[in-house]
């Protein structure tokens, strides 16, 4: 059936901010959908609240709405744009839930809008676990035993019949929020209660535990003619019990016979038919009992998902793109396979390599959180790697993770060297390793290696972990290979009387040894460590022996047909397939796995850089290892290398491709970190020189530069010991901001108000040494902060925008809300900020992007830091102003001038609308975590509110961030001693003026009463009942304003914050945010919020 002509315009719903469980994979799918549907001639309308996405580029849709993804706002868009259909399968759970709400409220029917991609009926059958279970059983498929409950009492009845351990899954929550595994009745009680609260329909599934079973996933597509194909099978390295998003996963399935695989395939097809997904892709999850092959269905998602992104990247089959085409009526046989061109999409990809994905966690950002992995997803990103062996793919994935590891250990970062352990400590380690492995934890893959080194067997480890013995065998092979590799030079060492020379040590290394090591995935860094030399020596040695990587092609068909898509990965074999073209080319380095501090924003910049350079006629080559991204879509760039972003891997590609230059400034810290070394190996870095980057990052040099240009900066010092630190801090004057020398996203940063807390921090948080000094800055309390993004071509500087932070200094810029244009600063000071930015751009010889952070206190402008690279705010600024900063920067980096680009007339101050960016936090995933903001970044994503007024923009941003502000009601106020001041009173009075009632606990209540503000005192948690938490739970509080009180009342803070999050009560933790909120509420009450597309906003400016 050809495409439908009865629909002309389609609304695509995005997935909103990046949160745990919903990351940039939906930008990838949404972007593909936008592109495909426009190519097919449809008018595309898009809604997504996330400005960092590529899909919200005004170029990608006919009308782009950066608005809250709620039924109310979607209805406004429907009223305005009158789409014929909604495609809800590209935006994750958020889009599906919104679509269901729209349908159930009759909005779709009222406006005559049709759901395409998945019908309401199918969505409900798949999403409503009760209906799902019924449907599966009716189709003759097995599911784990269990049932649905709405109260603890009902839950008790089920647990009686099944026993422990038992799984609890709340219905309709993101990433399984609020679910868990209970091993005893106490845990059971708390998880069930928690789950019932978290589920929007207060329903939880109590289910037989299949923990320890093998876990699989199939990616399936079906069309209206009932053609069904399986795109990819995935086997989880970690057994059932660990959320797939937190599991190491492997494609294809490794330990299934064809009989088992086909049995699963048949079941997946039955599921598709029973659920009724007939125009798109889905994934179906299975568990298999390793003892007898019994298979049960765990769940299915009637939409593209994180695993579809992974399967697309792993096979080369573009699931989202094909799903979009199916949604508009095409059938699989009508769609050609992009990669082979000659064969149709109605086939099942087959692959001739192994793919390993490893999640990336950021637990160090959330002190006190239990890092045991379970049914609720906790990872923030992932890296993926290709190899011709599992071992190679695993080690490549590990060195892609950006956790400082060069593979599976043997990189100088191990907890111990087993060859040097005394028998006693060996026994101790053995116990520790076993304990560690008993529970699934983030770094357990490294402990598997330790376990083998300490003499545990495959059987021992399987008993502890339930990881399939085949995977364990592969790990053992890596461990054995490492031993062999180490013994080569150790033997050489032992036979020499004196310290042997490097030559004699490496003389024993043959081509065969090197080749095998590389086929097992060992990096040069690991070999250097094992052979006691440096990475460069290994590289030279490798080249001498002719051990060079070859690049194979990802082609969906295991070489059966000729591939036209240059999508490559490296391995060590005989034939190289990547052909170097004669075109002038640029390599762009991506950002690697998402983590807090480095997310989708950098992928946006990379992709924009690519778009611009393609327009300029360059062959663009992307290197990245994050399967969720648009940058790793094979049709984004001319050539894609899915490879780790290490010096070794990048150099290999550079040496093969011989590009004109390489861009390191779009992908965040990851590429920047290796820029110097790449340059030392003769790679030309485009844009700002490594010298300029160094000048900005080296505090001594940068300080000198600021002084030379008479630019103010907070006083600072460097300490090499705890004693030093105290001296430096006392000289600078408290409060001080303390941080280790290497930071990303403000990791391990803290503000210390006195010597005692400084000592405490130094002792606990930092490993200070002459190699790892600690940086101490004067902390400018109550200062305003500003961010500037600009582009410099060496002569002219283009200011993209000056953003004012809503939170005062001390809150990490990534966590702070900000607004463009700035609203509380004089024109004169804005000018000063611009002047300083320009001066710095020139002083650092910036060619390309530049981000400067400023603080202003007592009318003095201070420079906090300068980053001569793409910043997190580039996409936000671009969406707010309509100026494609990253594209401009890319053109500048290849030698163009700002003047010639015709952009020098741009002035962000002429923009007539106001854009507010708000950060989004993963607190709801981490019970018991500190919910206050600080210098350490902890947000996972961002949203944007855009309108003609400040208040409306703030209000929209809060709705999008899941923190919708109330228009009336009761406010709970609790402020710390520092905040019991005039500012607080002013703010509270504003709320009172708007008719809000105030409740407060003792201290704050007394303070307010004394100043004449009427309020009601309520109990603290320990003071009695009903206390503040009860009031929140009872729905008697509509907004919480709670500024951090410090250690002593932490318990109360946890309880209050958690209650607010659980009951979806707006929660504010800074006075500045409280002041902003009251303004927003005031404006909210003046009239209804309206919607306007980015295209309209930009045209008006």
């Amino acid at each position, binding site marked *: 059936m050809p495409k439908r002509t009865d629909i002309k315009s389609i609304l695509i719903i995005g997935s909103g901010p990046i949160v745990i469980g919903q990351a940039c994979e939906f930008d990838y799918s949404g972007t593909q959908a936008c592109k495909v549907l426009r190519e097919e001639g449809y008018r595309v309308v898009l809604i997504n609240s996330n400005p960092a996405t590529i899909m919200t580029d005004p170029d990608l849709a006919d009308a782009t709405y950066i608005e809250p993804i709620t039924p109310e706002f979607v209805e406004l868009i429907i009223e305005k744009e009158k789409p014929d259909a909604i495609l809800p399968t590209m935006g994750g759970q958020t889009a599906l839930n919104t679509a269901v709400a729209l349908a159930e409220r009759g909005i779709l029917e009222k406006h005559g809008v049709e759901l395409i991609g998945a019908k309401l009926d199918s969505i409900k059958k798949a999403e409503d676990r009760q209906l799902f279970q019924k449907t599966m059983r009716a189709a003759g498929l097995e599911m784990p035993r269990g049932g649905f409950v709405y109260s603890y009492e009902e839950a008790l009845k089920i647990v009686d019949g099944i026993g422990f351990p038992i799984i609890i899954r709340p219905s309709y929550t993101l990433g399984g929020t609020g679910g868990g595994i209970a091993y005893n009745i106490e845990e059971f009680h708390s998880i069930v209660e928690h789950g019932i609260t978290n589920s929007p329909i207060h329903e939880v599934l109590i289910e037989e535990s299949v923990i320890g079973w093998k876990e699989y996933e199939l990616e399936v597509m079906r069309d209206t003619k009932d053609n069904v194909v399986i795109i990819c099978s995935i086997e989880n390295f970690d057994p059932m019990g660990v959320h797939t998003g937190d599991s190491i996963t492997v494609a294809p399935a490794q330990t299934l016979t064809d009989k088992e695989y086909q049995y699963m395939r048949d079941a997946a097809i039955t599921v598709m038919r029973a659920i009724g997904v007939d125009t798109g892709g889905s994934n179906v999850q299975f568990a298999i009992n390793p003892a007898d092959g019994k298979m049960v269905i765990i769940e299915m998602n009637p939409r593209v998902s994180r695993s579809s992104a992974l399967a697309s990247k792993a096979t080369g089959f573009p699931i989202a793109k094909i799903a979009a085409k199916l949604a508009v009526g095409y059938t699989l046989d009508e769609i050609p396979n992009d990669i082979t061109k000659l064969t149709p999409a109605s*086939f099942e990809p087959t692959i001739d390599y192994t793919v390993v994905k490893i999640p990336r966690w950021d637990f160090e950002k959330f002190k006190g959180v239990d890092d045991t992995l379970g049914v609720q997803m906790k990872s923030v990103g992932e890296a993926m790697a290709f190899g*011709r062996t599992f071992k190679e793919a695993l080690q490549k994935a590990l060195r892609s993770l950006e956790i400082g590891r060069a593979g599976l250990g043997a990189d100088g970062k191990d907890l111990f060297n087993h060859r040097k352990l005394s028998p006693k400590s060996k026994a101790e380690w053995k116990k520790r390793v076993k304990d560690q492995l008993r529970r699934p934890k983030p770094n357990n893959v490294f402990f598997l290696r330790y376990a083998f080194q300490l003499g545990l067997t495959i059987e021992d480890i399987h008993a502890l972990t339930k990881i399939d013995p*085949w995977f364990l065998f592969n790990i053992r092979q890596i461990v054995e290979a490492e031993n062999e590799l180490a013994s080569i030079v150790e033997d050489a060492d032992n036979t020499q009387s004196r310290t042997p020379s490097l030559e004699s040590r490496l003389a024993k290394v043959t081509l065969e040894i090197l080749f095998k090591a590389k086929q097992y995935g060992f990096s040069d860094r690991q070999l250097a460590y094992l052979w006691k030399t440096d990475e460069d020596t290994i590289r030279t040695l490798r080249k001498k022996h002719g051990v060079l990587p070859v690049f194979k092609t990802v082609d969906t068909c295991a070489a059966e047909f000729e591939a036209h898509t240059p999508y490559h990965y490296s391995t060590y074999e005989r034939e190289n397939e990547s052909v170097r073209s004669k075109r002038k080319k640029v390599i762009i380095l991506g950002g690697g796995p998402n983590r807090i501090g480095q997310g989708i924003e950098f992928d946006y910049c990379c992709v924009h850089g690519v778009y611009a350079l393609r327009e300029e006629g360059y062959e663009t080559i992307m290197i990245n290892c994050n399967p969720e991204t648009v940058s790793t879509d094979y049709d984004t760039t001319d050539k894609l290398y899915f490879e780790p972003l290490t010096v070794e891997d990048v150099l290999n590609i550079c040496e093969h491709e011989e590009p004109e230059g390489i861009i390191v400034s779009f992908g965040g810290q990851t590429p920047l970190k290796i820029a110097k070394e790449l340059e030392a190996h003769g790679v030309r870095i485009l844009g700002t020189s490594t010298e300029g980057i160094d000048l900005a990052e080296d505090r001594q040099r940068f300080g000198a530069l600021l002084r030379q240009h008479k630019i103010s900066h907070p006083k600072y010092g460097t300490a090499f010991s705890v004693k030093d630190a105290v001296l430096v801090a006392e000289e600078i004057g408290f409060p001080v901001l303390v941080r280790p020398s290497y930071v990303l996203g403000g990791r391990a940063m803290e503000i210390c108000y006195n010597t005692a807390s400084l000592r405490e921090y130094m002792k606990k948080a930092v490993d200070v040494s002459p190699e790892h000094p600690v940086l101490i800055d004067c902390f400018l309390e109550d200062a305003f902060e500003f961010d500037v993004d600009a582009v410099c071509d060496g002569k002219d500087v283009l200011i993209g925008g000056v953003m004012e932070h809503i939170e005062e200094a001390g809150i990490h810029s990534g966590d702070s809300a900000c607004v463009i244009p700035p609203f509380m600063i004089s024109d004169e000071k804005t000018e000063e900020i611009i002047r300083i930015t320009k001066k710095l751009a020139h002083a650092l010889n910036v060619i390309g992007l530049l981000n400067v952070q400023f603080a202003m206190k007592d009318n003095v402008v201070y420079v906090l830091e300068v980053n001569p690279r793409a910043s997190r705010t580039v996409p936000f600024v671009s969406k707010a102003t309509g100026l494609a900063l990253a594209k401009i920067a890319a053109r500048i980096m290849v030698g163009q001038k700002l003047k010639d680009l015709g952009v020098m007339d741009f002035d962000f101050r002429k923009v007539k609308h106001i854009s507010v960016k708000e950060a989004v936090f993963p607190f709801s995933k981490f019970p018991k975590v500190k919910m206050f903001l600080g210098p350490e970044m902890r947000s996972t994503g961002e949203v944007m509110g855009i309108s003609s007024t400040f208040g409306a923009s703030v209000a929209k941003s809060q709705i999008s961030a899941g923190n919708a502000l109330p228009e009336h009601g009761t406010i709970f106020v609790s402020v710390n001693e520092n905040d019991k001041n005039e500012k607080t009173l002013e703010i509270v009075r504003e709320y009172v003026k708007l008719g809000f009632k105030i409740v407060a606990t003792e201290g704050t209540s007394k303070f307010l009463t004394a100043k004449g503000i009427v309020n009601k005192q309520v109990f603290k948690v320990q003071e009695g009942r009903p206390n503040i938490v009860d009031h929140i739970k009872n729905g008697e509080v509509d907004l919480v304003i709670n500024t951090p009180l410090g250690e002593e009342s932490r318990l109360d803070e946890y309880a209050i914050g958690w209650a607010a999050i659980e009951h979806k009560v707006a929660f504010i933790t800074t006075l500045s945010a409280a002041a902003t909120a009251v303004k927003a509420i005031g404006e909210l009450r003046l009239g209804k919020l309206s919607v306007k597309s980015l295209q309209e906003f930009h045209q008006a400016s």
Partner: protein
Amino acid sequence: MIVKLALENGTVFTGENFGAEGEIAGEVVFNTSITGYQEILTDPSYAGQIVTMTYPLIGNYGVNLEDLESVKPQVSGFVVREYFDFYSNWRATSSLGDWLKKNNIIAIQGIDTRMLTKMIRTLGALRGVLSTTDGDEARLVKKAKASPEMTGLDLAKKVTCSVPYKWDEIDRTIFALAPQAASAQRNGRRFKVAVYDYGVKQNILRRLTSYGCELTVVPASYSAEQVLALNPDGIFLSNGPGDPDAVKYAILNLKKLIGTKPMFGICLGHQLLALALGGKTYKLKFGHRGANHPVKNLHTGEIEITSQNHGFAVDWKSMDGSKVELTHINLNDNTVEGFQHRELPLFCVQYHPEASPGPHDSDYLFAKFVKMMEGQKISSTLVVQ
């Protein structure tokens, strides 16, 4: 132990042996199935061939006593990227390597199988020699060049059974498709099917049995008269190795049998029917071997993902369109995948509806065969009355 794979085009791969020792020549082909190496190895259609798996990791789940398509491995040799002697699967009884050694099959691992696959794709299936005994590469290449071409080879006679036998086994594993026994019965009597064994895969027998048929498997050389003497309700023509055009005796017998009973052919059986109906077959450049080939059913418009293993194909231009109708085509290269007679109860497919390894999408063809026999019976009853 070192083993070499020498190709007729002069390329030599050196790897490690994980099977038996010795030397063997064969046609080097590749199979793109990710799973199912045990079924592939025991499929008699691979006789005379050295099979390369494009999926690099092989041996992971060992071998078991159930996933057999014949009593022993039938390939001449086996080529993989990385062999796993360590296996993990609840049904496994042995490692792949031990089993290959026991059955005297040479197997090579550690070579660039993708390079080999691309070579076969570009140059066509190549003759090759696997050797653990001769290290002289030039000599091995010469041996490869001297080995027989597949065209003109009757290999069916090498793999067929020597005497007729009854088959009454169905797949009893938990993975089996549900038995369809009820559908093949009439008045309590099961359909009798004569199966020509040109190298039959046992799963074909299991599927037919599971549809209620009572099977007598006969040697490839069994005459038409002998088959009719069995008084079967239908005749099934199996898959098998080699060049269909070389199996002259089979073509002659089929010419006699066409029209007498309902007939269903798979793979070589399909090619032989085409030849018996006056058509021609030709050798494909590198064949179809895998479990992901899209086939379009021209009657329903539906796509079946199919299991395939063939080096020859039917030339549709050579067929008499007034007699036969094209029913299935391969969407990758538009080659003939199935046809049926316009008047007689006869149909056949080039691919493998019995799967094993591969998807079950085309299992309906067995039902179709049973239906055809049912229809036939009614008409013959009418004739008698």
